């Protein structure tokens, strides 16, 4: 019991007040109701008043045994309703009779202002069944004081002292001697008593005493003393002046060793600082909220996470910054916490950042309660998991996309297997192409099931595998650099076979092979097209062959008939010279000549090699031009056209001699043929060089070509653009094909009546 009461005083910051209260009020005894320990301490005086013997001081005194309580109200309710601190209590005495007292109570509070216990001091008896003799004898007030002090000393290691201001005499109680570590026969004097205080505190005490004397104000100090045994102790010394007839009579004070408390409060301070340090510098957002959800304390991390300053955040409630979708759950969990249904809760929730963005967090809330169980405040820990959530969402999105690709490929078969080839995934493309459903395949067949056994055996032979090995081995064994692509034949559920291009890729996880992925596309259509192309090629070859035969017929048979015409006409005219002027004969001769020429051109066209020729020879352009201009010199002189060969002597091109000659002859002949008879006609040949080509530029000042009208047809077969009777478009057609066969090209610029420039690009 004593220990319990002692603990009350240990905890209580308001102890000196409590002691003064008891000393001044508890004339008829007192009792203490410890709320935290749920126990009662009853003073000896009250015990005596209630007629108990000292032997009956027991620990198991309960509220019910001590008091007759009102039926409708608890004691606590009475206390809370009471405004004056004065109640009437009905005590039971030893004989269970009611003894009525007027009682003043005092609330003892801890450092956070929480009531831990109540002290009830009996002011006066209102109604007593019997007054004991002992009670009557306790009238002497000072005696009562002494008795109370003795009792208090016992329960709280508190000493009392008194300075008689008239005599200067000092009275110490037992406990004071004990605190000073002096024997009880020590006679304290004022000066000596003050000397116990350490130098730094002594002045403080003296000053406090002087203040008290001057202004009759009570003092209360925490000071250090050095005991007779040279121990330093923290003591709490408080005092109050007593007046007699308006004059100061004495100072009475309480003296208590508070070294333990100081030590404890130091510990508390350290632990509080530790908490505060943790709070402030935590990597997790932390907050203390009041029971309404308003932020009381927030740490820096939380401010950073939510984007608010400390000040801004404290203006808000958690409801303000919680994502509306998560608010109901949070509030209902908090409600459960408030009602004591739980001690803490965790939830993943979303907050709204100051900038409006969503913050994902894991919230842990615990509660600190008042002694009556109502929430005092909440402690929240808020871990920002936005990055994790985002990563998770990104991952989910990536997986979804991959799955979408896997499933959306309706024309591409994707089959995943384990290491032994057992099918683990079978996409809709595979279902589509093969006719089997995924359910029929997954965990039932190995991928080789879909292939023809003949091909599997053939592949085994190619890979030098024995027949005994599993068929699927042909796929895993084929893999090089992680994959293998080749043509296979799949068998449809309906039994028909079709060609596929299959790529088998090894699936690895952390460098370990875990299976294979087979991606196949149906080659049926491609094969069909391939077949069509092949047959088309056959037809083309055939037609080409026929064309060659045709050319042969043209060059041999047709031509021999034509030449016979010519010969017979010549002979006819020879035998009958009078026919020479006959118009029929003349036209027949012309027709015969034209037929011959047409056959010649046709033959050239047929013989023309239009495919690109690779083995080209080096040809000196200047020399070729020189040689060919000589061949047409007579014609040029006749038409009064000057040929300028301005090509540098060392320019060479890659080509075929016969083609180059033919091209040059053709252009020079054309230039002469289509010269303008009104000017000094010329044809000028120059070259310029570009990256890949030598450009042979053949310029004339002839009659020109209307490119607008004839451009697209210029190099076509049998197109004639001029009125000249001997014009033959076949020349340009052949020339163009010859240039292209040598890997070159031709460009043309022309102005009617001004001239034409051909640019012939030849390989360097």
């Amino acid at each position, binding site marked *: 019991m004593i220990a319990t009461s002692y603990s009350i005083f240990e905890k209580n910051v308001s102890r000196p007040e409590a002691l003064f209260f008891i000393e001044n009020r508890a004339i008829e005894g007192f009792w203490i109701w410890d709320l935290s320990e749920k126990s009662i301490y009853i003073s000896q005086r009250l015990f005596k008043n209630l007629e108990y013997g000292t032997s009956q001081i027991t620990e198991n005194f309960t509220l019910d045994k001590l008091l007759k309580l009102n039926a409708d109200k608890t004691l606590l309710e009475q206390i809370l309703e009471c405004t004056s601190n004065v109640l009437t209590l009905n005590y039971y005495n030893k004989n269970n009779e009611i003894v009525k007292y007027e009682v003043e109570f005092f609330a003892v509070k801890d450092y956070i202002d929480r009531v831990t216990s109540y002290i009830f001091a009996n002011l006066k008896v209102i109604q007593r069944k019997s007054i004991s003799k002992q009670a009557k004898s306790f009238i002497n007030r000072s005696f009562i004081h002494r008795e109370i002090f003795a009792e208090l000393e016992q329960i709280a290691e508190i000493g009392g002292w008194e300075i008689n201001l008239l005599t200067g005499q000092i009275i110490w109680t037992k406990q004071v001697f004990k605190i000073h570590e002096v024997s009880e026969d020590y006679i304290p004097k004022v000066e000596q008593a003050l000397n116990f205080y350490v130098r730094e505190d002594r002045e403080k005490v003296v000053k406090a005493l002087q203040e008290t004397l001057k202004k009759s104000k009570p003092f209360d100090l925490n000071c250090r003393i050095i005991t007779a045994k040279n121990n330093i102790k923290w003591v709490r010394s408080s005092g109050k002046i007593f007046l007699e007839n308006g004059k100061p009579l004495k100072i009475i004070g309480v003296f208590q060793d508070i070294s333990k408390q100081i030590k404890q409060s130091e510990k508390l301070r350290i632990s509080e600082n530790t908490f505060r340090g943790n709070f402030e510098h935590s990597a997790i957002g932390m907050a203390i909220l009041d029971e309404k959800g308003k932020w009381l304390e927030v740490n820096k991390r939380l401010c950073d996470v939510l984007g608010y300053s400390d000040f801004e955040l404290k203006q808000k409630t958690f409801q303000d910054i919680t994502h509306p979708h998560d608010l109901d759950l949070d509030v209902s969990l908090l409600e459960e916490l408030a009602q004591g249904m739980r001690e803490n809760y965790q939830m993943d929730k979303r907050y709204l950042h100051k900038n409006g963005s969503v913050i994902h967090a894991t919230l842990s809330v615990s509660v600190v309660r008042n002694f009556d169980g109502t929430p005092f405040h909440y402690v929240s820990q808020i871990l920002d998991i936005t990055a994790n959530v985002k990563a998770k969402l990104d991952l989910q999105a990536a997986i979804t996309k991959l799955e979408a690709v896997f499933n959306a490929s309706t024309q591409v078969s994707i089959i995943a297997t384990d290491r032994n080839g057992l099918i683990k995934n079978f996409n809709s493309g595979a279902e589509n192409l093969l006719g089997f459903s995924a359910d029929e395949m997954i965990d039932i067949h190995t991928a080789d099931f879909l292939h023809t056994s003949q091909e599997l055996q053939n592949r085994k032979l190619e890979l030098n595998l024995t027949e005994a090995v599993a068929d699927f081995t042909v796929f895993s064994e084929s893999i090089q650099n992680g994959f293998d692509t080749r043509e296979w034949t799949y068998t449809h559920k309906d039994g028909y076979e079709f060609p596929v291009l299959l790529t088998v890729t090894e699936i690895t996880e952390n460098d370990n092979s875990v299976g294979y992925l087979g991606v196949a596309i149906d080659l049926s259509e491609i094969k069909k097209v391939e077949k069509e192309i092949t047959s088309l090629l056959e037809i083309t070859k055939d037609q080409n062959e026929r064309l060659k035969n045709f*050319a*042969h017929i043209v*060059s*041999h*048979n047709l*031509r*021999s008939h*034509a*030449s*016979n015409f*010519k*010969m*017979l006409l*010549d*002979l006819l005219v*020879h035998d009958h010279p009078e026919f020479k002027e006959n118009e029929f004969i003349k036209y027949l001769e012309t027709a015969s000549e034209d037929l011959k020429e047409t056959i*010649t051109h046709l*033959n050239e066209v047929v*013989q023309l090699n239009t495919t690109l020729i690779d083995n080209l020879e080096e040809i000196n352009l200047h020399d070729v031009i020189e040689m060919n201009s000589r061949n047409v010199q007579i014609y040029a002189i006749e038409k009064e056209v000057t040929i300028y060969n301005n090509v540098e002597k060392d320019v060479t091109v890659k080509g075929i001699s016969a083609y180059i000659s033919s091209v040059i002859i053709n252009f020079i002949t054309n230039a002469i043929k289509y010269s303008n008879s009104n000017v000094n006609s010329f044809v000028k040949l120059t070259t310029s060089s570009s990256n890949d080509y030598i450009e042979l530029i053949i310029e004339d000042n002839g009659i020109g070509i209307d490119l607008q009208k004839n451009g697209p047809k210029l190099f076509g077969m049998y197109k004639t653009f001029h009125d000249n009777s001997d014009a033959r478009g076949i020349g340009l057609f052949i020339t163009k094909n010859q240039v292209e066969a040598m890997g070159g090209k031709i460009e043309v610029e022309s102005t009617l009546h001004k001239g034409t420039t051909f640019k012939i690009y030849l390989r360097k």
Partner: protein
Amino acid sequence: MKKIALTCIIDDDPIFIFGTQRMMKIANFCESFMIFHNGKNALDTLEKIILADGTLPDLILLDLNMPIMDGWEFLDEFVKIKCRQKITIYIITSSIDDEDVKKAKTYSSVSNYLLKPVTIEGLKALLEEI
């Protein structure tokens, strides 16, 4: 200008043979002719003449496209027959196929390659050449 005594024409085209004979007469090229309509006839007859040491033609005008035995086959067989007399052989054809021209050049016994039709001017030039 030397006149050729006997010209052998090997051609399956009667118009050509008719025309050429007339031309040669007009050009005063040759008086007598030996005519064959395919290589086989020509080869057989010429071989007999050689064996009998009879009169051989000075000039053979050889067509390429003929039934039974064509000009090439004739050439291949004819060069095998040993003959003391030098006979000038001209290929005369309507073929302007490059391949034929090239092939003709590979036969050392072939003097030249003439394109039909034959003209009086052409015959005169030919006579000069011989």
